[in-house]
């Protein structure tokens, strides 16, 4: 088991090194794209704790991202008692506000499971966009709120794109390590126990209510941080920045990456990014297949492709990318464990 720990620490260090050097290797625009991937990754980390570990499903995490985005927009544009808060410092506040919202959703969720929980949380995602429209003088309505331009602070000599890249992936790495520390010990076992058998978990002394709401609050905190970063990077916030379908994409990407595999989630996050923002390219790739001729400009094409890719991947890799990696390396690592 020591060996597994060593491998995981090594993996994290390698990731840290990769994050650090990446902007030297790619263009500034690509760094900005990667930053966006990092934001989805942060949201997926939270969703993984909720779904992969505690076994609760949420089709409403786009709403928690939006709460994070609006918190940042309100604090940095409207300000508090006339004091504008630097966008950077609004990030943890956005996480906490979304986390509290998650806690509030998590309490009624205790009485629901499976399909019903999916429906209720989806209802939250659908109805949330009415809130900025209702309180338009405060939250900007459809025309939204314009945040100040992305600037490199503290006189650092990075380009804005590299700055948002380092900011996002720095936070993503910290939150990844935090999630890893959380799940590898007692709390992670506790959540998995609840996922696998609530009745046995309760009989083993686990308070279902406490841990299930904790998982909801944590995952919403992650989503709030992700949403805050997204609003900062876009410099704009209105109800369409986090569309309803994003909540569905997040769950789909979680399945794609493997529900309890943190590193697999980077693949899931990339998939959301590519399929949302680079549909034309994906259509071109698919057109290389024989007898396929899709028009990238057709409306609805991104959704059709996203759906098709998801179906194909889940047929080939039912446990997602993470599950496939584990199966690939499983025989090797389990032999190593039994020796240690």
């Amino acid at each position: 088991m020591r060996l597994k720990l060593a491998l995981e620490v090594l993996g994290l260090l390698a990731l840290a090194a990769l994050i650090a050097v990446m902007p030297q290797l790619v263009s500034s625009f690509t760094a900005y794209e990667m930053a966006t991937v990092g934001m989805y990754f942060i949201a997926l980390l939270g969703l993984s704790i909720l779904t992969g570990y505690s076994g609760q499903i949420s089709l409403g995490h786009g709403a928690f991202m939006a709460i994070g985005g609006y918190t940042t927009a309100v604090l940095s544009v409207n300000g508090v008692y006339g004091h504008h808060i630097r966008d950077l410092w609004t990030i943890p506040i956005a996480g906490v506000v979304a986390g509290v919202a998650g806690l509030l959703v998590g309490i009624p969720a205790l009485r629901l499971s499976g399909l019903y929980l999916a429906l209720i949380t989806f209802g939250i995602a659908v109805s949330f966009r009415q809130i900025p429209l209702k309180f338009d003088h405060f939250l900007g309505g459809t025309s939204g709120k314009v945040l100040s331009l992305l600037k490199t602070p503290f006189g650092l000599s990075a380009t804005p794109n590299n700055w948002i890249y380092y900011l996002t992936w720095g936070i993503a790495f910290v939150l990844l390590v935090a999630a890893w520390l959380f799940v590898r010990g007692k709390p992670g076992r506790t959540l998995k126990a609840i996922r696998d058998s609530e009745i046995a978990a309760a009989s083993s002394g686990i308070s279902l209510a406490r841990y299930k709401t904790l998982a909801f609050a944590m995952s919403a905190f992650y989503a709030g941080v992700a949403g805050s970063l997204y609003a900062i990077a876009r410099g704009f916030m209105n109800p369409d920045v986090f569309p309803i379908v994003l909540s569905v994409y997040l769950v789909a990407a979680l399945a794609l990456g493997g529900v309890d595999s943190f590193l697999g989630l980077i693949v899931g996050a990339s998939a959301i990014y590519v399929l949302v923002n680079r549909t034309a390219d994906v259509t071109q790739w698919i057109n290389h297949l024989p007898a396929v001729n899709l028009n990238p400009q057709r409306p609805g094409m991104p959704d059709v492709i996203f759906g098709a890719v998801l179906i194909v991947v889940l047929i080939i890799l039912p446990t997602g990318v993470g599950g496939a990696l584990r199966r690939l390396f499983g025989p090797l690592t389990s032999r190593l464990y039994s020796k240690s």
Partner: protein
Amino acid sequence: MPLLEVENVTKRFGGIVALDGVSFVAQPGEIVGLIGPNGAGKTTAFNVITRLYTPDEGDVRFEGKSLLGVRPSGVVTRGIARTFQNVELFRGMSVLDNVRVGAHARHGDQGADDLLYYVNLHSLRYRPASELPYGTQKRVELARALASSPRLLLLDEPAGGLSHEEVEQLGTFIKRMRDDYELTILLVEHHMGLVMSTADRVHVLDFGRKIAEGTPAEVQGDKQVIEAYLGATS
């Protein structure tokens, strides 16, 4: 003082009376058998003791204190652990992690390794619980229950699905476990051979009512018990 006192417990589900004024006690160190035909209310009695159900009438006391104000997750910290009729393991977790979760209830996860040696599962400790054969899964469940250092252990049909030899070993093991860990054991079982060879006292339920109690020999000769199992003889 008895360790466990079930006093006049009634539990209804809609129009069905699953337990009807049932009383019994378990003295410290005893192995108490709870037997009866299908639907007699044995598992319901377990679920009342472990607070998964709240009785409509009556009281359950452990070490003289009522359990009715305790939450289901608080029962194990009082010193009561259980296994389940249809094995409720944490299937996605390793054998070791299953046992560690059991140990969380009282004192971190120390002692999990010793317990795995005790139930002879140490070599399988990193295997996912779901991959093991049924009989082995039952041992994992037993180790998980023991890991919480209980004083009262509730075993719900531990012999179900086991082979003839396994059942014989189980009988010996239950007694050894009682002695090694100073347990009191409440045993729900269909397998008469196992109950008769291990239990000190037996309580017989039928349609939610207690119809007999005594030593295994006494109960075996009881006319009402024979009728309950074989149907009324005319």
